[in-house]
């Protein structure tokens, strides 16, 4: 594995950890949303962040050469 692919792999790992944290945040926001309806906004933002992270994971998978055309 060359250095370029390793760098992208590291980014993918970081984004995966980030999205995992965000998913935990979504669960927390949903569980507390009955008392605090404004937490739903936080949950929505976290879903957005997860989707963004996934989009960059897909991009880095491609750019690092892990997936083909």
């Amino acid at each position, binding site marked *: 594995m060359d250095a370029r692919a390793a760098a992208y792999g590291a980014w993918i790992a970081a984004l995966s950890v980030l999205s995992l944290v965000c998913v935990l945040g979504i669960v927390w926001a949903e569980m507390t949303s009955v008392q605090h309806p404004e937490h739903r906004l*936080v949950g929505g933002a976290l879903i*957005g962040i997860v989707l963004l992270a996934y*989009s960059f994971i*897909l991009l880095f998978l491609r750019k690092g050469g892990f997936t083909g055309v």
Partner: protein
Amino acid sequence: MYKRVLARLLRWTLRLDVVINRVYPEDFNPLYYTGGLSNLFLTVLILSGIFLLFYYIPSFNEAYTSVEFVTAQVPYGQIIRGIHRYSSDAFMIAILLHLFRNWFTERFRFSRDEPWISGMMLLLFAGFLGVTGYVLVWDQRAELLVAMTGNALASVPGIGGWLRTMLYGAPGTTNLLLPRMLYLHVGPAVVLYIFLWWHYVRIRHPKVWPPAVWTLFSLGLILIFCSLLPAVSQSQASPVATPTRLAVDWFFLLPYVVLTYLSPLWLILLGVVIVAYGLYIPYQLPETETAMGLRDSGVAEVVDANCTGCELCYYDCPYNAIVMVPSPHPGVTKAAQARKLLAIVLESRCVECGICIGACPFEALELPRLLETDIQERVLAACRS
């Protein structure tokens, strides 16, 4: 002059592509998928709109409160309302990118004027939908929009009052207004799909969806926007407090901003001129055969003797210009004698690109002004030099 400006714009467009292609792989370049992105946002709009339709009540007393109910009481209602708001803006951005890109790269030549015309219709309807959507909320902005639109229509000499009555259902603001606006929000949204059919009908393998990277990115961005900048109404419209301030959505309400600088009649005239020019763009540069050179090599012709009915050109033609018909008589060559089908070129759909020539391994298609023998002569001359 126009040609020079267009060449300059084309240069910028392609330079932008080069920059983006350095960052993204070529098949992820978002500017190659502006049409697909528009379709993505339209789908999001339809789905979130169906959700909002369940709660919306089109009457003066309850419209505002029903929207507030969705926003405050329904779980994630605020988010879904935001999705509907922000993806409408994204829809407009994607449509405009699509328009300008195809304008600057001149992708409206020959029979491609039909996608262009239907695209202008889609743009018009999308803009109209945006305005009626802002009226449905029935806050002060909505009231202002209704007043401004009414005044603008009424200023048309002769038929002005009639136009306003046609739109609002009565001379003044009556109970008919909001149901009418709801219909004018939902009905044209359905009509969009009819225009989309027209938009796609001459295209084979249309790119109707962006790559997953951009689907996820767009949805994520919209969600972040609707959480950080929640979509809100202004205060409720009421007959006593005259609205003064127009909170502007620059993608849909730009004409209403222009109203502060132009009289309504001039604005309507300007709009008509812009739309008419937009529809005229594909026909603006009538070029002679010589000026077009290779690009006008004549409509592809089927060589009846050689066609084997294999359908390869039919599958590859990007504009659905080739149809297969039952063969009326056998071909001449050995491979063509047992044919069941014969390829026919629909002249009105052909853009003279020659892709069918490359598809045909049986030498059964030719561009009349650029024959296979011409190419072979050039190859031989090149090899001799």
